[in-house]
């Protein structure tokens, strides 16, 4: 098969798709997966909202929504109809164009991430051989949308929320990427499909520290609790989307959940073996794992208090970043040492890695690191 795109470098940007022999070739493939991704993301978001609201209800000793449809399953539909019918209010002093554009700018990247995530072997829109790089690049674009929203609203709460968001993204991108590099070193490829194929043992076992770093940094990047201080309702009302209503608010709501699903999907692909698993069809494994990761996020949200902005920064630069660098070095040594590809050796490596995780986290949390700086004289 000839390369579809050639950027002038001698690399095939698109690795030839492995199984799907869709009739019509590239454009049919593209159309099919675009529709699939939009449908998938919207369905998953509805499922996620349902799981979050019902799950949180359970954890908080209340029922959660249970009136619309069987077990309240139609609640997301009811919500969607409600926000569609709501009035769209734009503040008088708002920058109208930017205010209108912000939800779109924020929403598009959340969808685009899914272009390179394999739902099963080879079933993805574009098997880029730089898949991970693409995700890292795309995922921070929504911040632009969020900052646009914060600035255009001409509201101080919005501005505070947006500034917190930018600060968080700038800090958390780094441990996030470094945690990914560990996985890339082991898998030997940047293509997400190749990474999944490389996971005979899920990388969470070989890269436990990387997994925790990625999970924490990912939560911070998508404003999930305990890092949800960009839209901290008890402090700055609703953060960047304080001045949004109707469908534009719904877009931000959608972005929030689509990003959570995206991070869950990336974690699934990088650390939990993606679509691989026994018995069940691969796509079902994928969905199950994504939802399991999302459920963990819901769980932390219901349990933990929120950290402060200076503590957020300190956590990124003094805790996650050093650990990510150490993790990278250890992984590189392990890859260079090229241990034999047998089960006993793998077990040894798993134990060694978990020990390293425990020791490093203990060392840092007890001795090298204090959360936050405290008071400033004014």
């Amino acid at each position, binding site marked *: 098969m000839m390369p579809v795109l050639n950027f002038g470098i001698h690399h095939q940007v698109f690795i030839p798709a492995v199984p799907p022999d869709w009739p019509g070739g590239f454009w049919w493939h593209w159309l099919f997966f675009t529709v699939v991704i939009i449908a998938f993301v919207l369905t998953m978001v509805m499922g996620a909202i349902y799981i979050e609201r019902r799950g*949180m209800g359970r*954890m*908080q*000793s*209340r029922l959660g929504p249970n009136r619309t449809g069987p077990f309240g399953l139609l609640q997301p539909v009811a919500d969607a109809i409600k926000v569609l019918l709501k009035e769209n209010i734009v503040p008088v002093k708002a920058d109208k164009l930017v205010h209108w554009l912000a939800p779109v700018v924020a929403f598009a990247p959340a969808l685009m991430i899914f272009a390179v995530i394999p739902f099963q072997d080879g079933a993805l829109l574009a098997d880029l051989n730089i898949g991970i790089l693409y995700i890292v690049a795309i995922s921070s674009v929504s911040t632009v949308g969020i900052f646009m929203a914060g600035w255009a609203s001409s509201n*101080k*709460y919005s501005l*505070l929320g947006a500034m*917190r968001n930018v600060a968080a993204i700038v800090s958390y991108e780094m441990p996030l990427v470094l945690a990914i590099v560990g996985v890339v070193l082991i898998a030997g490829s940047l293509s997400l499909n190749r990474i999944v194929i490389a996971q005979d043992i899920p990388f969470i076992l070989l890269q436990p520290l990387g997994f925790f770093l990625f999970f924490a940094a990912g939560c911070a990047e998508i404003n999930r*609790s*305990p890092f*949800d*201080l960009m839209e*901290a*309702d*008890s*402090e*700055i*009302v609703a953060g960047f989307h304080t001045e949004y209503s109707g469908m534009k608010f719904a877009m931000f709501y959608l972005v929030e959940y689509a990003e959570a699903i995206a991070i869950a999907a990336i974690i699934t692909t990088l650390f939990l073996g993606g679509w691989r698993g026994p018995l069940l069809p691969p796509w079902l494994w994928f969905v199950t794992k994504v939802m399991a990761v999302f459920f963990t996020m819901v769980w932390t*949200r*219901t*349990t*933990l*208090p*929120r*950290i*402060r*902005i*200076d*503590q957020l920064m300190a956590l990124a630069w003094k805790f996650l970043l050093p650990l990510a660098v150490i993790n990278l070095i250890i992984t590189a040594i392990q890859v260079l040492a090229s241990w034999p590809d047998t089960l006993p050796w793998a077990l040894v490596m798993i134990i060694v890695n978990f020990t390293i995780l425990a020791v490093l986290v203990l060392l840092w*949390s007890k001795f090298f690191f204090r*959360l*936050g700086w*405290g*008071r*400033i*004289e*004014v």
Partner: protein
Amino acid sequence: MALKTEPFVLNMGPVHPSTHGVFRMRTTLDGEVVVDIEPIFGYLHRGVEKLAEQRTYTGIIPLTDRLDYISSMNNNLAYCLAVEKLAGIKVPERAEYLRVIMAELQRIAAFLIAVGAFLNDCGAFFTPFMYMFREREKIVDLLEMVSGQRLTYNYIRVGGVSQDIPEEFLPALRTFVAQMPGFIDEYDRLLMQNEILLARAKGVGILTREQAINCAASGPVLRASGVKWDIRQADPYSIYDRFEFDIPTGTVGDCYDRYRVRVAEMRQSLRIIQQAMTQLPPGPVKAAVPHLIRPPVGEAYAHLEAPKGELGFYLVSDNSIAPYRCHIRPPSLINLTALRDMVRGWKVADLIVIFGSIDITVGEIDR
């Protein structure tokens, strides 16, 4: 390159998720740092003190319900103590015990809300709040049994209480007192030692012993600063001298101490209820008090330990059926005066946490 920055003014409230009612803080922020705040209140002013001058002594009790509306029993009691002191009315033994039981139940309920709201302000998304409302619901059910109301009880009357307890009350109370320590342990396990909560609350918003005394703070805010001052023991009213209980105090006076003191207070209140329940004597629950009380000319001040601090009623009588003057000492308002000193230099997020740890009710501040 040095960027030019300047502080900006942010109006927090009167409608804001964490201002515990309609309270407004005019904050001056330097980025995230709070440079100055100016509390502005009066959005819930109903003129209770003035209204009281045109009502009979009994008719004022429903007004007191609406002061600190999450601890109306204590408000009723404080007011009735003042009237009884003014008119020299003796309260029957059984009524005294019932008053103590209700007041302590109400204290637990108010602390549950205070602690739940504080943890909510820290950002724990409603879970502790809902847990604590689960238990508050049981207390509210108990109080509904005796008074028929769920928020504004109007139960404690001049000379006793409005009616005797129904027979299903004591078994229900016994079950509650037996179960509650387990629930308090559950709250402790949930977040008491949580690393993030420690980072958010420990050492934050310190109110030193001297500051606390100088601004006449009272209640958990004062005790968290290390002052062992509880009116139930310092100036025993009703029959509090018959019960054994400790006064929990903090050491530093930070938000975490205030939170811890409140949780410990719940346990002490349970102890008092336990003792009062076993000693409860039979007998009448209301002294023979005329419908229109005409106290002799004079004045009286009665105070008690409300959940938020020292709640006082000052009444002046001119021998008519209504008080000549009724002044209320609201603990929330006086504790709030320390807010500015506590929050300066902390972040916006800390402002909310510190404000939550003072635990105010706007109904009482504005009166």
